[in-house]
C-alpha cells in the first residue's frame, strides 16, 4: 500500500462513466483504482483519506433534476458520515488541504463548480463562483470538439498538453462566471486551462458547433489556484484508444487515445509530490 498511487472513482445515484474513468486511471499508471458507491463513503465504509486522486465521473447525478449536479452538491455539502457524525464536506476539505487531487469530468465538473471546489479564488473553497447554463442550442449534444490548452496554467492534469480532440456529451455545458471580475481573475491566474477552438487550433471560438454550448470565452476546463483540482466538460475517458476517434478508419493516429494524458499527468504528479 505504501508508495502506491491510489484512486477513488465515485459511482452511484446516476453517475454513468465510472468504468471507463477507472480504466483511464489504470492506463494512466495508477496502482490501485477503486470504484466506490457514494453511499459507501457516507456510511463510513470507505474514506477519502485513503486515496490520492478523487475522480468525479460524468453522468446525471440525481437525474440533474434540480439543475446539473445540484442535488448531489447539496448532499456533498450537508450529509454526515453515519459512523462518525463527521460532515462529508469536512472530509473533502481535508482531502484538499492535504494536497490531494480531484478531477471532475462533465457532470463531475458541474458538481465541483456548484460546490465551489473550483475555481476557489484565494483559497475560498466552498464559494460558488462559476456555473453552467443550458447549451445555447437548448439541446443535449454528443459531438467531438477541438480544445486548446493554456501553457501558463498551474493545472497538473494538462501539463505539457497543447491541444486535444475529445467528445462533449451534455445539455448544460455553457460555462458562466459569476462576474466580470471573476473572469478577469481566472485569466490572470491562468486558471482557464482548456478552451474550445477550431479545427486548426487557432484562438478560442464562440462559433457553433466548434464551441458546442456557448461557453463564455470558450471555456471548457478550469482549475483551482493549486492546479490540483480540475474540471473538464469534454470526456477524456471517452478517448483511450484510437478506435474511439470518430475518424480512426481514415486517419493515421497513435495507438493510445489522447484522453490518457490527463490521468498520466495526475499519477506522475502524485508520485513526485504527494507520496
Amino acid at each position, binding site marked *: 500500500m505504501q508508495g502506491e498511487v491510489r484512486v477513488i472513482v465515485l*459511482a*452511484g*445515484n*446516476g453517475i*454513468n*462513466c465510472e*468504468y*471507463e474513468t477507472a*480504466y483511464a486511471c489504470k492506463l494512466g499508471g495508477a496502482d490501485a483504482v477503486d470504484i466506490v*458507491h457514494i*453511499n459507501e463513503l457516507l*456510511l463510513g465504509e470507505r474514506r477519502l483519506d485513503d486515496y490520492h486522486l478523487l475522480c468525479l465521473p*460524468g*453522468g*446525471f447525478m*440525481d*437525474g*440533474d*433534476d*434540480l*439543475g446539473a449536479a*445540484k*442535488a448531489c*452538491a*447539496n*448532499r456533498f*455539502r*450537508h*450529509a454526515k458520515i453515519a459512523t462518525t457524525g463527521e460532515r462529508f464536506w469536512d472530509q473533502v476539505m481535508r482531502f484538499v488541504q492535504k494536497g490531494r487531487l480531484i478531477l471532475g469530468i462533465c457532470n463531475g465538473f458541474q458538481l465541483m463548480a*456548484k460546490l465551489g471546489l473550483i475555481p476557489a479564488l484565494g483559497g475560498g473553497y466552498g464559494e*460558488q463562483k*462559476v*456555473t453552467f*447554463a*443550458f*447549451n*445555447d*442550442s*437548448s*439541446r*443535449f*449534444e*454528443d*459531438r*467531438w470538439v477541438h480544445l486548446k490548452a493554456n501553457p501558463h496554467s498551474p493545472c497538473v492534469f494538462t501539463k505539457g498538453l497543447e491541444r486535444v480532440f475529445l*467528445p462533449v*456529451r451534455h445539455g448544460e455545458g455553457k460555462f*458562466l*462566471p*459569476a462576474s466580470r471580475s471573476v473572469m478577469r481573475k481566472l485569466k490572470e491566474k491562468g486558471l482557464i486551462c482548456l478552451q474550445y477552438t477550431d479545427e486548426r487550433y487557432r484562438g478560442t471560438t464562440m462559433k457553433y458547433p466548434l464551441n458546442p454550448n456557448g461557453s463564455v470565452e470558450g471555456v471548457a476546463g478550469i482549475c483551482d489556484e493549486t492546479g490540483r483540482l480540475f474540471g473538464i466538460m469534454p*470526456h477524456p*475517458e*471517452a478517448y*483511450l484508444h484510437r*478506435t*474511439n476517434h*470518430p*475518424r480512426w*478508419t*481514415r486517419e493515421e493516429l497513435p495507438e493510445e487515445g489522447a484522453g490518457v494524458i490527463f490521468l498520466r499527468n495526475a499519477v506522475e504528479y502524485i508520485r513526485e509530490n504527494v507520496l
Partner: protein
Amino acid sequence: MAHRIEVAFKGELRDPLGGKIREKVNNQLGLEVESVRTVDVYTIDVPLQREELESLAKGPYSDPITQVWSVDCPLAQDFDWMIEVGLLPGVTDNVGRTAREALEARLEVRLKEEERVYTSCQYLIRGGLSRDEIETIATGLLGNPLVHRFEIRNREEWNSVKGIGSVVPKVTGLTGGRIERFALEVPDEDLLSLSKERLLALSLEEMKALQRYFGRKEIKERRKIRIEEQITDVELEAIAQTWSEHCKHKIFQARIRYIDEDGKEEVIEGLFDTCIRGATEVIRRSLGEKDQCLSVFTDNAGVVAFNEQWSLAFKVETHNTPSALDPYGGALTGIVGVNRDPFGTGKGAKLIFNVDTFCFAPPDWSKPLPPRVLDPKRIFEGVREGVEHGGNKSGIPTVNGSIVFDDRYVGQPLVYCGTCGMMPRYIQGEPSHIKRADPGDLVVMVGGRIGKDGIHGATFSSEELHEASPTSAVQIGDPITQKRMTDFLLVARDRNLYKSITDNGAGGLSSSVGEMASGPGGCEIYLERAPLKYPGLDPWEILLSESQERMTLAVYSAKIDELLELANRMEVEATVLGRFTDSGTFHCFWHGDTVAYLDMDFLHEGVPRMELVARWERPHHEEPEFALSEELTSTLERMLSRLNICSKETVIRQYDHEVQGGSAVKPLVGKKEDGPGDAAAIRPLLDSFEGVVVSSGICPRYSDIDTYHMMACAIDEAIRNNVAVGGNPARMAGLDNFCWPDPVKSDKTPDGEYKLAQLVRANKALYDYTTTYGVPCISGKDSMKNDYLAGDIKISIPPTVLFSVLGKIEDVRRAVTMDAKAPGDLVYVLGMTYDELGGSEYFAMHGYIGNKVPQVQAWEAKELYYKLHEAIMEGVVASCHDCSDGGLGVALAESAFAGGLGMEVDLRKVPSTGVERDDYLLFSESQSRFVATVHPTMQEAFLSIMKGIYLGEIGRVTRGRRFIVINQKGQKIIQGDISRLKEAWQRPLRF
C-alpha cells in the same frame, strides 16, 4: 397550507426553455408570441419555517449565479398570459422526488410518507393571443391533458400577491381494499359486456372457457374451502392479463388454415413454433459445435456467447400505444422498460447499449388529423426526447437505429426500443443464463413503488386504439430510480444473493410472479405488503399495476437478510411479498383473506387456442408510367431529400452514443463525422479488441406488394449492414419484432384473412431466410393491434417487421466505415442489380407502388457476405456501404460526400440483369448489394478473395467535389457537386 418556492432566470439572462417554447409556438402552431419566460415551481406539502424554506430556495433549488427565487410570493410579472403546467395526481414526478430528497438532506430531517414536494412550471407569455390560442399552446405543446393539469390566467385575472395559490396534486379520495366477485353463469352477452367494461380484452370463447372452468364441480368444491365460489376481480384480472395477446401471443400460437393464391391449403400449427422457433432449432442443429446460442425464447431476452467468459443478452420491444397517447412518457417508459429485459434475463446482465427505430407519419403533415391523434411532429419530438432521457440518464449508449416515415403511422406510431446486456457466463461457478425459483424461496419486489399507473397496459395494447382508451395506461419512467436499482442488483448478483430475477413490465406482479412461479409450481402472495405510492389501491390493482422500475426476485430464505441489508445501504426499496410453493396454485391474500386461488395449469395453459383462416391474394398495382429525364442530377438531389433517405443527424447527436467508452464504429462517420454509418461496433470489454456489431433492417413499403419479400429484405438488410462494417456472418443472431394491424377477421376487420395471410407469408420468409443464412432468431416480440379506430375512420399500419442483428467482430481494428477514403481508390459495386423498383423510394417519389418487389437471392448473397467479410478482415477494403433505400445512386453519393471526395462512375460496368433505364439502374432496390472502394494496391488481393462474385469496377474516387455518373449510352447523366448533394441530404431534418 403548502408552500411555494419559485425559481426563475435573472431578467438579463436568456431563458433557454422559454426561447425554445417560443420557437415551437411560432413554428409548430403558427402563432405569434413576443416572448416566453419560465418559472420553476416547487410546491412543498411540509410544515416548514420561513428560514428553512429560504435555505432550500437558496440552496439546492436555485443557482446563485443565474437564478432568482421567492418563497410564498409569485415571481411572475410583465406578461399577457400565464400558464402553469403541473402533473396530475399520481403521475410520476421525478423532479419532485429529487427535490424531496434534497429537502431531507438540506434540513437534515426525515419526512413523513405523505409529506411530498410537487413540481410545476409557469410559462409567462407576451403577445396578443386569445384564450383559445393560449389553451391550444397549453394542451397542444406545453402539456398533455392525460398527464398534466393546467392553470391559465391573463394579466387582468392575475393576483400579484397570491399568484394562483398553492395546489397540491395529492392522490386523495381513494378508499381501496375492495374485492368484487362476479357470477359467470350468465348469458353470453353479459360475459362479453363484463370483458368489455373491465377492459379485459377477452373474447367470448375465452370468457366461456372461464365459465366452464368455474362451473366444474370439483373446482366449486375446492373453492368453497378456501375462497368463495364466484370468481374475484383479482382472479379475473390475473387471468385476463396472463391470457392477453400481449403476454400469450395467441395469434402466433393459433392454428391457421392458410389458403394461397392458387387455392392450395395448408394448416399451420402455430406460426411461432413452426416458423420462428422451428427455424432456430434447425439452425442450431446444423451449426452443431459452432452454435453460440445459450438461451433462446425462454427468458426476457435471448442469450448468446460473446466469448469463453462473457455472454450477451439482447431484446427489442415496442411501446406503440402509450407513445401515441403521450409520446414523451410512452417512449421513456419504452426504453427504461426494455432495459429491464436483459437485466431480468438469466441472473441479470449489465446493460451495454440501446438501439431504437421509430415509424412516424411525416413531420410536415398538413392534412386534417383524425380525432385524438397528436400532430406527427409532436409525436416525433416527444418520442425522441423520451428516448434521449431514458438512454442518456441511464448511462447506456444509443448506438443504432433508424426512422421510417409513412402516412399510415399517423394513428399509431411505432416505437421500437432495444437493449443489449452483458454478463459473465458463470457466476460463482453456475451458468449465468440459467435461473430457477424453488418452493420455499421468497418472492421479493425491488425498486419503485406501486401506483395506479399503467394498469391494464397488457390488455389495453391487445386492443386497437380508440377514443375511449384508458388514460391510466400512460406512465412516466424514472431512469434514476432504475439506475439505483440496477446498481444494487449487480452487486447482489455477484454476491449470489438471489436465484432468479425477472422484470415487472406488462401485467406487473401478476405476470412476473405468475411466470416465475410456474417453475416451482405455485406461490403465495400477501398483497397488503406491497409498498404503495399512495394509499387506496384495490388488491387487484396492486397485482396488475405496471408501475415502472421494479424487478421481482426469488431469494433463498437464508440470504434474505443480507439482500435486504444491502438494499437498505444502497437506498433501494426491497420487500418480501410472499413465497414460492409447489401447491400448484397461484394464491393471493389480502389481510389474511384469500382473494385469488387459481390452478397454475389453468392460468398458464387454460386459454383456448384460436383457429383462424388466412387467405392470400396477390395485390396488383398500377405499373408506373413516367419518362426518363435527360439528366438525373436534380433527381438524385430529390431522392437524397426523401424523408426515408435523408440524414437523421439531428436525432443521433442528441443521444449519447459513446458512454461506457467502447465506441468503435459510431452512427456518424466520415471526414466531417456526418456520414450514415451502416452498423455500430463497440468494444464492451475495454481491455480487449473483440467487438459487438449491431444493425437492423426494416422495409414496410414492400408489404404493399408481398410481406414474404418484405421480411426477406428486412433480414437481408440487417445482415448486410452488419457485414458492411466487419460483422462475421458466421457469428450472428437475430431478433424479430412484428408490428401488425389486427389480422383477426371481425366486423371491425373485414380484411382480417388477408392481413393474416400477410403474417403467414412474412413468417414463411423468416423461416426460409434465417435457415439459409444460418442466423438464428434468439428472441422477439409481436404487437398485433396497430390500428386506429374512431367512428368510421380506420387507419391500419403497413405490416412492419424490425429485424435486428447482433454480430461479432474479432478485432474492431479491422472494422470498415462507409466513407470514401482517398482519391484514386477504385469504386466497386458488389452484387447483381435487377429491375426491382416495386415499393421503392423512387417509385414512391413518382406516386407509384409498382409490383416488382426486390427478391433476395440468399445463396448468392451468403457467398458474397462470407467473401466480403474475409476481404474486410484482410484489410483490403477501404470503405464499404450497403445499398438500401434509393439504391446505388444514393449509396454512391453518400459514400462520396461522407468522404469529402468526388467520384466518377460508369453505369455500363454495373452488374445488372434486365435493367434498361438508367434511372432504374440507379434507384432499383435490389438486395444484397454494396458499394465498396479499394486502394489500387489492394486491387489484386481484393479481386482474388472476391472471385466468383458478381461485381463491377465502375469508376474511381476523385479529388475535388464533382460527382459524375456516365449512363449506359456513355453520356454524363449526373454532374453533381458533393456539397450540394450533401446539403440536399441534410436539409430536411436539420436542427
